[in-house]
């Protein structure tokens, strides 16, 4: 399983893997927003947590179809599925490597982009915490969506339609933590709920992804 994880990371980082694509997209979204709503600092500071969360979510969405599609094309997905590894573990590893190559860079880049959005100084800590807690859930849910659409050619648009409603609870709690943190309110309740969503999705969804993958590979 660790070999699979390392292989996925290596594939993503080397050429053609699309590593950094999500990051660049995140940057573009955040840079475009001030052009659209105006450079007024107070307004930007008010909407910064929400925009940063939406940007991170969209950047995550962008790379989802790569999770299984490339492996499916060159046949390695069939080999992995017939290997003695449990498919549930494979799905969990896929989600983990997606998080390391997409979610983690977003978490690290978020404070810098927060600066561009003139996020108030109290907000940085909670923005990073909420993204660090929330993006794993995005990756796990996304892996489920990718497993659903793996048999469909050009399933990218369908994938986003399927995954977006599933992202709603994570987005609500995550952005709520970031917003409460930026305005200096208490964040405990939201933080606990966000952590709960992440834990439950991480525990249960790999099983659903594996079941769906088996149906698709039959």
């Amino acid at each position: 399983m660790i070999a699979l994880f390392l292989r996925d990371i290596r594939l993503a980082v080397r050429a053609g893997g699309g590593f950094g694509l999500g990051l660049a997209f995140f940057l573009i979204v955040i840079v475009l927003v001030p052009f659209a709503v105006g450079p007024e600092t107070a307004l930007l500071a008010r909407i910064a947590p929400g925009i940063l969360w939406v940007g991170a979510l969209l950047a995550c969405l962008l790379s989802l179809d790569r999770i299984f599609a490339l492996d499916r094309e060159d046949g390695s997905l069939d080999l992995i599925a017939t290997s003695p590894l449990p498919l549930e573990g494979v799905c969990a590893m896929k989600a983990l490597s997606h998080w390391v190559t997409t979610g983690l860079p977003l978490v690290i880049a978020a404070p810098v982009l927060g600066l561009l959005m003139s996020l108030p100084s109290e907000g940085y800590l909670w923005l990073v915490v909420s993204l660090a807690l929330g993006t794993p859930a995005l990756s796990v849910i996304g892996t489920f969506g990718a497993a659903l659409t793996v048999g469909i050619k050009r399933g990218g648009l369908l994938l986003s339609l399927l995954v977006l409603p599933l992202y709603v609870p994570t987005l609500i709690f995550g952005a709520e933590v970031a917003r409460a943190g930026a305005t200096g309110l208490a964040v405990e309740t939201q933080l606990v709920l966000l952590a709960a969503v992440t834990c439950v999705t991480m525990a249960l969804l790999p099983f659903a992804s594996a079941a769906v993958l088996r149906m698709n590979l039959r």
Partner: protein
Amino acid sequence: MGSIWEYANPKKFIATVDRVLPFVAGLAVLSLVVGLIWGFFFTPEDYRQGSTVKIIYLHVPSALMAINAWMMMLVASLVWLIRRHHVSALAARAAAPVGAVMTVIALLTGAIWGQPMWGTWWAWDPRLTSFLILFLFYLGYIALWAAIENDDTAADLTSVLCIVGSVFAVLSRYAVNFWNQGLHQGASLSLDKEENVADVFYHPLLVCIAGFILLFIALVLLRTRTEIRARRTRALLARERMT
């Protein structure tokens, strides 16, 4: 009468639908006509809401059926996954567009009522928002059915999507509660509460709800029958091409 699983046989199912459908459809039309006419013309106007209160006869039943349609799809999906009866999978598929239309009716009538009453077409109220999310779930479910060529795989995948989606739909319902305070009033109907809407509005409303339930059943039966026949036609055509 044997067990309910006899109707998993498509032939038996179609024969039963052929017999039952005219009655169900007739009853649906009858109760809708009676309920709506009674509700629209023979009930008093509310002293604060005026005549706009009467949109309740479309809004409440369609909202109810939007949720019940999803529940029915969930049950049918589970039956498909556990017992693999094709009729069940096709019934879930047939119910999805009906449920989606019910959701749209509920949202539209709500907007039309909300404009004069709340002074806005749309508010990010928890109930409204969760209905919008429910609508997105319907769209995704229908799109997934349409995208996959192999019928059995499509049935499997949409069933899992329905189950996972149900969990997330419930989760979103409570998440949006947390996220914004409600503008929408509480439940207008419940079995265990003293405070329902006044009786003059209540009785025609019950008739309308019965009408919507019957309409839903009639549409699902009809669409399931069509799906079975379409699949049979495809099989026959394929066989003809072989020979």
